[in-house]
């Protein structure tokens, strides 16, 4: 019993990381149908800039804030310099541009931050909490709490605010959105700032668990992307459920079958789900008029 609980808690810890990264994908996707493969780099920058500010003497909350604001600014710059000039291009070209941006950021990070692995102290200490014979680190609760808070925020943003609906409208039909008075360039800028900020927040929360270095972004992006696809790209609920589902699957496979099949089992389930539900578990059904 305590073994099962430990496998679940291990899965939830990992899953919360995936969920937080997956949530970052949703906003840009909702605004432009572009899957932003530089999302993992935002996570890396969140952790890395926090490390730098913290070692330079800033208190941890301030260092985290600096990292989130700086990364959000970088997201805006990415939109202005790389995405906006190619506005008329098909979605596939834009996705390829985001891959280019991710390689660029990784290269610069390697020069600026070096190749060392870094970390900073967990927010509430390293003493594990005991639950019915299983253990979880307090930092995992921070990550889980962060994922849930971002989810609630995004859900409210997209369904309860005019601005959130403007983002969805821009995605649906940019020309029509402009015609009803939505400032679509501003919506795009905003979506990049928010996505980058959420990515950086993820980086701040997970770094005490996973540690960080200039090249962690790709791994985050791949697993977060897989989680977002499983849950349904663009839906915050899908990102949350997909992330936790993927983590728990990995934990249970590593525990009960073998750690050798951990990743394979997770991807087989994703393939299975996408075979029957190509939009993911909670994806919106798209109907095109022909």
């Amino acid at each position, binding site marked *: 019993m305590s073994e099962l609980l*430990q496998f679940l*808690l291990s899965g939830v810890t990992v899953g919360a990381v995936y969920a937080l990264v997956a949530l970052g994908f949703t906003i840009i996707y909702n605004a432009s149908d572009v899957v932003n493969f530089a999302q993992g780099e935002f996570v890396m920058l969140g952790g890395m800039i926090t490390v730098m500010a913290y070692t330079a003497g800033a208190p941890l909350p301030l260092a985290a804030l600096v990292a989130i604001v700086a990364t959000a600014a970088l997201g805006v710059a990415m939109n202005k310099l790389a995405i906006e000039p190619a506005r008329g291009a098909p979605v596939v070209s834009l996705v390829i541009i985001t891959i280019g941006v991710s390689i660029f950021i990784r290269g610069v990070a390697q020069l600026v931050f070096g190749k060392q692995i870094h970390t900073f102290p967990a927010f509430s200490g390293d003493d*594990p909490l005991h639950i019915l014979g299983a253990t979880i680190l307090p930092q995992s609760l921070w990550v889980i709490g962060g994922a849930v808070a971002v989810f609630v925020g995004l859900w409210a943003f997209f369904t309860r605010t005019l601005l959130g609906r403007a983002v969805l409208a821009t995605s649906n039909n940019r020309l029509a959105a402009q015609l009803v008075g939505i400032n679509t360039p501003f919506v795009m800028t905003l979506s990049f700032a928010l996505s980058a900020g959420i990515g950086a927040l993820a980086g701040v929360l*997970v770094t005490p668990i996973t540690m960080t270095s200039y090249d962690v972004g790709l*791994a985050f992006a791949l697993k977060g992307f897989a989680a977002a696809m499983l849950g349904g790209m663009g839906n915050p609920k899908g990102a949350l459920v997909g992330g936790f589902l993927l983590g728990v699957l990995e934990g249970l496979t590593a525990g009960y079958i073998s750690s050798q099949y951990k990743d394979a089992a997770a991807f087989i389930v994703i393939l299975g789900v996408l075979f029957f539900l190509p939009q993911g578990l909670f994806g919106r059904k798209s109907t095109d008029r022909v």
Partner: protein
Amino acid sequence: MEYDEVVAIIGGTTTGTTMSNLAVAEDAEIPFISLAGAIDIIDPVKPFTFKTPHTDRMACQKIFKDMQKAGITKIDMISGTDGFGAPMQAQCKAVAPDYAIEILTDEIYDPKDADMTAQLTRVKGTEGVQAILNSGFGRGPSIVTRNVKQLALDLPFYQSHGVASDGFIELAGADAAEGVRLPGTALLVADLLAADDPQKPVVDAYKAMFEEKTGTPVGTFGGYAHDAFLIMTDAITRAGSAEPAAIRDAIEATSGLAGTTGVYTFTAEDHLGLDLTAFRMLEIQGGKWTLVE
């Protein structure tokens, strides 16, 4: 090589480049000192090929010897799937029977994983495990170390030479790393060496020179090249000639030459020249490295 009238080669920092260099050097009958890790480079022995780095197998042997001394016979092995962890896992499994050590559970993790408590919970649930051995490089071993503490697995815990640096203690946290043992080279614990240690002068000199010139801490890899150069110049001096065949014979006759990695003694059957004394068994105590022997 013909155009430049090369008489000897030092190089091949990876096993791949060494393997392609090796064929050329052997054909041209030119002595070649490789800086790469794999045991296949010198096993079987090729007449003109030598190497300076110790092998994964030696690290496994050093660890198992220490376990044997502590009366440990049943262990768990947890390894990263990266280019460092996987070959070492294979070497350790191959030499474990020589030391009467049985690997009860053989777990792996991806070097990018965020949490290894699932694998370690399996270890916890396995009857009779007396020690844990983790082979890996980078972030993975630090996370494993923290998870071992999180699960309160109160067992002797061995890491590999892949994390023999101060960075490891910092990342895992001095608290979680307390009591961790691993094999490391003399170069990394230069301050701890006894005054009469044969490697002390060369290690100190190289460390001082390197750190003054580059401003960065010494690493094991630079030491391999330093040692190769030392062996080569020593051999050429003793041969009194720059003929490839004479240099080769002089390298093979090298005896008791102290380098940063270990004390080299080559023979016709041994083109690595190091024994297990090249590794020092280290233990982390109070956030600092200490020598076990």
